[in-house]
């Protein structure tokens, strides 16, 4: 491969860039120095750990280990997403079901179309992208649901008092929340290539793949992220809105 090959020395020199943000934080009194140091140390440890784990799993070529690793990523993402919706009971289970459904359907289509193969070096990076995007989308959905059920309380109660069931009373809030979850993905799809060269495409180009070939992958990635966030946001919002009502169909 004639692409980038970063030595440890180069990484050490690049790490000096962290000091720029530390200096900014210090002189601007942002009080972020501790956070920056922790985040950098965590990033280094996590990335090295995952690098070695991936190298091991790629070497194994075992579909069971690959699936277990996907499950591990999904559980982590679900846990993180559920933290954004503390008011939502069973947030973890709802997130897990939503992400598994979104990622599962998308991966199934990609595997069926032979766009990717169920090998660790293909399925793990691709799943990582769609799972992390779903996680962000679900976090946004939960925050929007919680905020709107608070701010539009009288509207929901007015609809209930007119004799509406909880779904028609909440439908505008559910739709807004799904939209909120999907908008970052739609916006990034709109500006892909114009504002940003996405990480995967950049990575492929750096590794020596031709830009035209990298673009094909990026198109596939854009489509799959769109479909996964749509499915996951839809499922999470429809599964969680009931949490804002009690069994007597009253807003809590």
């Amino acid at each position, binding site marked *: 491969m004639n692409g980038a090959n970063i030595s440890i020395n180069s990484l050490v020199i690049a790490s000096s860039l962290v000091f720029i943000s530390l200096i900014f934080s210090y002189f601007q009194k942002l009080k972020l120095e501790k956070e920056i140091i922790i985040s950098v140390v965590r990033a280094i440890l996590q990335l090295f750990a995952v690098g070695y784990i991936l190298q091991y799993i790629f070497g194994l070529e075992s579909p069971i280990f690959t699936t277990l690793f996907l499950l591990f990523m999904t559980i982590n993402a679900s846990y993180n997403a559920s933290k954004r919706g503390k008011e939502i009971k069973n947030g973890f289970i709802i997130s897990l079901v939503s992400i598994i459904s979104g990622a599962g359907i998308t991966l199934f289509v990609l595997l069926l179309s032979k766009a990717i193969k169920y090998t660790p070096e293909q399925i793990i990076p691709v799943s990582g992208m769609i799972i992390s995007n779903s996680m962000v989308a679900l976090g946004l959905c939960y925050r929007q649901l919680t905020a709107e059920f608070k701010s539009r309380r*009288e509207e929901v109660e007015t609809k209930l*008092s007119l*004799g509406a*069931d909880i779904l028609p009373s909440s439908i505008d809030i559910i739709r807004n929340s799904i939209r909120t979850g999907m908008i970052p993905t739609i916006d990034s799809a709109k500006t892909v290539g114009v504002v940003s060269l996405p990480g995967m495409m950049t990575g492929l180009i750096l590794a020596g793949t031709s830009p035209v070939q990298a673009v094909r992958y990026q198109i596939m990635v854009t489509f799959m992220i769109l479909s996964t966030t749509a499915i996951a946001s839809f499922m999470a919002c429809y599964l969680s809105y009931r949490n804002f009502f009690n069994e007597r169909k*009253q807003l809590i």
Partner: protein
Amino acid sequence: MSQIEFQNVFYKTVLKNISLKVEKGDYVSVIGSSGSGKSTFLKLCCHLISPTKGNILINGNDVMKNNPIELRKKISYCFQTPILFGDTVMENINYPYSIRNKTMDMERVNMLFSRFNMEPEYIDREIKNLSGGEKQRIALIRTLLFRPEVLLLDEVTSALDVDNTLIVENAVNDLNNEGVTILWVTHNLEQSRKYANKLLTIDNGEITSLEVLK
């Protein structure tokens, strides 16, 4: 059998030991200082909240055993601040029909528009172009499209001018004459004595008096 019966009802720390009977066709005016629990009392009547202690019976049946959706279709609640949905009056008038999977009954719609002194053309208006009084009248029309057995009004005329108040008062009085039970929270004692047959005073979460006026 009373239409609404409260038996030693408590709601958190807001309402304490409320016992009361409302008969079919009553026109009950509910008065009391701000924060005394009047709105909470109305919300308990239409089961938007449940009592923390005690029983509420609607036509002899425990409210906790009734289907809440069906109950709210019979006991309608109109808020102090009218909340209209979407962009147009049409969307609001259509809402009660759409949740019942029914088509709009234009005869009924026009009758209610006329009762609340509004031209039928109002149905095509945008909400942003309505005055406060018009919004409140649209909210009332929306509540009455399917005639309820009980109408709960929460200070619905408090922000209206004299003309709008009179229109609403007359329309509500007509409904009561047709047999609809009215529970009207108001600060206006003159309004209470003019129309109501019972005057209920709630103070600090407790019933302090229930006066029979007519």
